[in-house]
């Protein structure tokens, strides 16, 4: 019934009763009904609210989402508080899908009750921070709707939005791009002013030396460098030009138009032209936008001139738009081709279009002086056309043309005067009359005759023509009163009694001016000047001329009217606002990071074998973050280490950590700095370097306190250095940092234990470093390699599992206490070797009882795993006291895919569906290898097995400790010692199949870096690439 547009509101109570129906289809239809009629039947609608409130707590995220959706669509003011509460709760829901719906609900609540704005902005602010691509588009939509003026909310999220953009669903992309366009116009300086300057440079580059260049730079004072964030936006939107969604392409096009340097805007034209293959409506909008663009920058579309050629099958509106663009694009070079094309159009059966073509020819004629005469002649030929509309249009255009060229066109005027007998279209007649009047001195014989003829037909003429007859009369009276005095007076008399006000007014006005009488002497003297003044030629302009003040791609632009809710695009600021506002996130995340550090350290002491390396990584990570921050930070760090002596004791700093602690920049020197400190000898330095290479991570040749063990293994010099060590220490203290001192006593205490460990290390790991079998597998063609997965596994023992690297990962929620009836569960990837088997990824699950009763028999129930995936359950937890929490470890073999493992978490009475989806970085385990081996392996994993990307590196991320910290945090990768400052290498294997994954980060100039991933697991490679990209570019 609703569908048929009938009013079904009287059935309301009966329908609403069904809201609790079990049948989903009925339920849905009731929802539709409710949304439509609730506003009219508010009291009754309230009946249904409780059902939704219940559904909001449903464990299934989709039910929660749809409940929120319907609840927020019921437009009943009384429930505003309930909606507000529901939105707030949903905005911190675990499921991104529910959060997405919360973002939608914001707009609905806002339109229902704008009073809630402040509260809603808080929610928007929170949701803007969300990292899920599902949420991004919806929340930006809400932002645009509720608080587009709060541009400050975007700052912190700007870079994130830019980076997420490619993965957001297409509708969200459109909204975000439009918002970012506005944002960028307020935050960055114009790239346009300096365009010419830049161009000049590129030309001069060939001739000028660098020195000169620099001088010039200084001379120009304000050399423009694009804000990296501005550049990032342009770079991240560019791939979207390839979208199949016309709206996305248009959005990017307008972004480039409004934001990109002029030299770059051209890249959008190709994509826009592509859209012309689409359906009529898309063509219409795109052509309109191209029309506006082509006025300002012809060059953009000139190469596509022929794409705008008109087909006889195009609808008229498309034809006229194409014509408009062709006219805009006309220049000396292409005009002859165009005119030939226009000739075809003029003959079109579509007369409206033919008329438009004549207009277009007129415009070309005025714009390009070379062809004015040709055009004029062509148009004169058209005067003999059979079709009246064509002729009339020609007359009008010729009139305009003659006006711009007041040369000697007497012949044309005579010709037109002859036409007057046949033409009936008022505009054309009026134009001819005006022409004759204006240039009556050039056709002295014909003009009075024309007046005579028209005077005869005066009464039957159109108003427009009558006015021109009056004009003609007046002009002739002034120039040739002898012949025309009587005629003019006759015409004036006719005009005096005309039906139209205008005509009567005009008649009176003219009479007073030209016919001398006593009352008005003053003005009539100037009558001739008034009537026969030189008139400026009319400009033949495109109707799209001034449309560019609207943002392209908008409704306002299409209609050329300011639409409701149109958000003005601001002018570029003179001076860029502080760009650091967008940095905020960096500091935050770093702090957060150091905060977490303590925990895992304490957890691990039991596993001594691995503890060393783990701590190593911890240290390198922590100290690098602190190193990049401040000294005080690192001092704090050291204290922390002191307190947990187990961990700090084993903190034999790896090369990386040494780097960061020493805070100096030449890493090459640093790598061996300890050795230098102790021995001061060049030889030993080399040796130490050699060792460090051979033994990769174990090369943490912290000779100060591990000297005894070192000497036992290979280095003789250690004994010398030992004696020297005290002095070295002091030098250390002065050269490096104060914190070294603090470290020292602790480290010394630990020495005995460390020896054991190191010896062990050596035995275990020395022979392993050279891979043997893997290369053979890698040589095979990719498809074969896939088949041979099992084989390559065997080879995995060769490169081997070295030190487990543990980086504290963030915990993920498995089960929220609300949905778990008081049972909460979290999990994190512990990055320890799995005790369940080689292929299992270990997951630590922490269950917490938040109820006030015991929860018994917590175990894993039914599992829904994708084929191939296996899971090793944790042992059932018999009893969990109120407030208590227990951590259990389980293993999941994800088969090297990021598919979700779904299973049930059961208690004695209940079971809850939960799922774990691993980040791709957790499907790996780190391996050790030397730089040489790395390169060798990499050489075999090229082509299909290599994915790479150029990424932006935030300036604060460009130091090597930070890079290593961030990469290792994002994915479980082992660090490969690197001989180059700007290249960082990481290696790992996939947990399931043991395929090598090699990651290279090569820093380039101007804060970009090349990120290369080599692996035969192309899926993993590309997903990993995508996940690692933002790690370095984001602050």
């Amino acid at each position, binding site marked *: 019934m609703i*569908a048929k547009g009938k009013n079904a509101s009287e059935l309301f109570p009966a329908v609403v009763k069904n809201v609790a129906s079990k049948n*989903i289809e*009925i339920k849905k*239809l009731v929802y*539709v009904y409710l949304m*439509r009629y609730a506003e009219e039947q508010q009291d009754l609608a309230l009946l249904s609210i409780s059902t939704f409130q219940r559904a909001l707590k449903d464990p299934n995220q989709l039910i929660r989402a749809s409940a929120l*959706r319907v609840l927020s*669509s019921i437009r009943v003011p009384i429930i505003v508080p309930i909606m507000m509460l529901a939105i707030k709760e949903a905005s911190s829901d675990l499921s*991104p*899908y529910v959060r997405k719906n919360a973002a*939608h609900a914001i*707009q*609905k609540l806002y339109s229902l009750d704008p009073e809630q704005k402040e509260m809603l902005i808080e929610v928007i602010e929170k949701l803007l921070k969300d990292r899920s*691509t599902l949420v991004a588009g919806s929340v930006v939509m809400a932002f645009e709707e509720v608080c587009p003026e709060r541009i400050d909310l975007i700052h912190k999220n700007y870079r994130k939005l830019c980076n997420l953009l490619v*993965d957001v669903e*297409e*509708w969200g992309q*459109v909204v975000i791009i439009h918002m970012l366009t506005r944002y960028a116009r307020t935050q960055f300086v114009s790239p346009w002013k300096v365009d010419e300057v830049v161009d000049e440079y590129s030309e001069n580059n060939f001739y000028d030396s660098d020195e000169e260049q620099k001088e010039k730079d200084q001379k120009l004072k304000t050399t423009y460098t694009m804000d990296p964030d501005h550049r990032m936006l342009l770079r991240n939107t560019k791939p979207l030009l*390839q*979208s199949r969604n*016309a*709206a996305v392409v*248009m*959005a990017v096009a307008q972004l480039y138009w409004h934001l990109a340097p002029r030299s770059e805007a051209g890249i959008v034209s*190709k994509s826009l032209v*592509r859209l012309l*293959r689409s*359906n*009529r*409506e*898309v063509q*219409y*909008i795109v052509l309109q936008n191209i029309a506006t663009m082509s006025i300002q920058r012809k060059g953009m579309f000139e*190469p596509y001139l*022929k*794409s705008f050629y008109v*087909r*006889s*099958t195009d*609808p*008229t*509106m498309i034809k006229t738009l194409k014509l408009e663009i062709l006219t805009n694009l006309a220049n000396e070079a292409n005009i002859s081709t165009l005119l030939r094309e226009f000739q075809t159009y003029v003959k079109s059966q579509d007369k409206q279009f033919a008329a438009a073509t004549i207009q277009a020819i007129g415009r070309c004629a005025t714009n390009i002086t070379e062809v004015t005469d040709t055009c004029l002649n062509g148009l004169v030929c058209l005067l003999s056309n059979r*079709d009246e509309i064509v002729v009339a249009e020609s007359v009008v255009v010729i009139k305009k043309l003659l006006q711009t060229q007041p040369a000697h066109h007497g012949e044309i005027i005579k010709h037109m005067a002859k036409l007057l007998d046949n033409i009936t279209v008022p505009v054309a007649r009026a134009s001819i009359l005006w022409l004759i009047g204006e240039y009556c001195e050039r056709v002295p014989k014909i003009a009075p005759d024309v007046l005579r003829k028209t005077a005869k037909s005066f009464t039957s003429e159109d108003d427009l023509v009558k006015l021109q007859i009056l004009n003609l009369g007046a002009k002739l009276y002034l120039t040739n009163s002898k012949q025309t005095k009587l005629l003019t007076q006759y015409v004036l008399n006719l005009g005096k009694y005309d039906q139209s006000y205008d005509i009567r007014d005009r008649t009176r006005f003219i009479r007073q001016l030209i016919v001398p009488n006593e009352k008005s002497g003053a003005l009539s003297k100037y009558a001739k000047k008034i009537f026969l003044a030189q008139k400026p030629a009319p400009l033949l302009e495109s109707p799209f001329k001034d449309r560019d003040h609207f943002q392209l*791609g*908008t*409704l306002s632009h*299409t*209609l050329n009217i300011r*639409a*409701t*809710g*149109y958000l003005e695009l601001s002018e570029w600021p003179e001076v860029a606002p502080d760009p650091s506002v967008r940095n905020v996130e960096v500091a935050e995340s770093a702090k957060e990071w150091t905060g977490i550090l303590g925990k895992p350290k304490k957890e691990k002491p039991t596993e001594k074998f691995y503890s060393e390396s783990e701590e190593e990584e911890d240290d390198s990570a922590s100290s690098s973050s602190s190193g990049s921050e401040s000294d005080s930070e690192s001092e704090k760090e050291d204290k922390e280490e002191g307190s947990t002596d187990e961990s700090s004791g084993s903190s034999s700093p790896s090369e990386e950590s040494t780097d960061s602690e020493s805070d100096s920049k030449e890493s090459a020197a640093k790598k061996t700095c300890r050795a230098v400190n102790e021995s001061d000898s060049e030889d030993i330095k080399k040796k130490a370097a050699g060792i460090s290479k051979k033994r990769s991570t174990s090369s943490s040749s912290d000779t100060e306190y591990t000297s005894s063990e070192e000497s036992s293994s290979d280095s003789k010099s250690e004994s010398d250095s030992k004696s020297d060590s005290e002095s070295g220490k002091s030098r250390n203290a002065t050269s490096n940092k104060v914190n070294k001192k603090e470290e020292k006593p602790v480290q010394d205490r630990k020495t005995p234990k460390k020896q054991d460990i190191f010896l062990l290390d050596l035995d275990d790991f020395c022979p392993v470093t050279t891979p043997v079998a893997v290369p053979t597998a890698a040589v095979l063609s*990719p498809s074969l390699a*896939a088949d041979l997965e099992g084989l390559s596994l065997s080879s995995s023992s060769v490169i081997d599992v070295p030190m487990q690297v543990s980086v504290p990962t963030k915990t993920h929620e498995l089960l929220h206490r609300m949905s778990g009836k008081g049972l909460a569960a979290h999990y994190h990837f512990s990055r320890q070797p799995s005790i369940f088997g080689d292929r299992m990824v270990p997951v630590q699950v922490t269950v917490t009882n938040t109820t006030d009763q015991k929860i018994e028999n917590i175990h894993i129930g039914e599992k829904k795993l994708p*084929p191939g995936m296996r899971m090793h359950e944790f042992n059932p937890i018999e009893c969990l006291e109120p407030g208590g929490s227990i951590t259990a470890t389980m293993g999941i073999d994800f088969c090297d895919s990021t598919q979700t493992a779904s299973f049930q978490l059961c208690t004695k009475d209940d079971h809850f569906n939960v799922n774990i989806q691993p980040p791709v970085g957790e499907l790996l385990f780190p391996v050790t290898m030397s730089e040489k081996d790395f390169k060798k392996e990499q050489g075999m994993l090229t082509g*299909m097995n290599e*994915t790479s990307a150029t990424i932006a590196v935030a300036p604060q991320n460009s130091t090597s400790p930070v890079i290593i910290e961030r990469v290792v945090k994002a994915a479980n990768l082992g660090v490969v010692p690197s001989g180059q400052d700007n290249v960082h290498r990481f290696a790992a294997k996939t947990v399931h199949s043991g395929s090598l994954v090699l990651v290279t980060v090569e820093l380039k100039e101007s804060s970009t870096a090349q990120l290369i991933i080599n692996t035969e697991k*192309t*899926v993993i490679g*590309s997903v990993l690439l995508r996940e690692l990209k933002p790690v370095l570019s984001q602050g």
Partner: protein
Amino acid sequence: SSGKYFLSVVSQSVCDYFFEAQEKAIDVENVPPVISTPHHYLISIYRDKIFFVSVIQTEVPPLFVIEFLHRVADTFQDYFGECSETAIKDNVVIVYELLEEMLDNGFPLATESNILKELIKPPTILRSVVNSITGSSNVGDTLPTGQLSNIPWRRAGVKYTNNEAYFDVIEEIDAIIDKSGSTVFAEIQGVIDSCIKLSGMQDLSLSFMNPRLLDDVSFHPCIRFKRWESERVLSFIPPDGNFRLISYRVSSQNLVAIPVYVKHMISFKENTSSGRFDVTIGPKQNMGKTVEGVVMTVHMPKAVLNMNLTATQGSYTFDPVTKVLTWDVGKITPQKLPNLKGIVNLQSGAPKPEENPSLNIQFKIQQLAISGLKVNRLDMYGEKYKPFKGVKYITKAGKFQVRT
């Protein structure tokens, strides 16, 4: 025509503005897609003889709405097999359910057909019979997990007994040929339509022998742009079923081979109210493949009353109301070129038509991509079985117009 409302409740009377505009336009094709009314804006599309109108209250990119409306129409087409007035009327409930899922408060929600089909099962005769007996419904009781994943275009847990992957490389020649037979404008537009029926979740990569031919490409969201940028390889996790993988334009530097030529002699004599019509279509030699499915349509001038023609091959029809002449030629054999010739009757007294009508030609050439594009290989990763792979090439006339 049909009106649809989303966003808040809007009086149906707003549609009157649309009908008014529709009357004003000369024909349906010329109804402006964007209309401004005192309080609302109407954005419409015209498809399959139906107008889809949306009512807009505030500023929004018009293409956003247009694109969405087309998706809606696509979905109807997908669900009901056709997008016609009767189909919509017959399936009003499903239409409502679909719109409900596709839009939330004016913002598109689920537009991927894979997700929608999980939510609402498309009607089939069998199912409607079963439903009426068992009382079950079209609404799926499983919740669409696809909506939550980051590859919303693919359903989880797909299973097929025959694993197949087909790719159709379809190229269309857009051309304008002038009176003398020389090419004013020609361009090749292509698409690759795929039909993927593969179990599980796999990663495909498709490479070309000559990817440089592709000048401008638009992708299905599943394609990894970076791989294309760096290696010119299409790497993607495919949607299930039929979908358009890419559309492309062949770089304009390449000269386009026009596979057919048209000889024409159309003239209208002054004062005799009749004219002559003589058209021959022939293949250009260099192709080596047969040109088939040839159809010529001509919009004759209004003054034409009737046509009296004989065709050496195929059959022709002339609709005296719309003045459209259609000649279904079929296959062209070079030995005997198809010809259509005869007398044109004009309205007596009417002036002779100014311009000769242009001829729109359709044709098809199997097993040929006119640009020379060739698929090199298709590799599959992530699943163990061997799929059956097939690539088909076809060249068609796009907007192929001969001016006379």
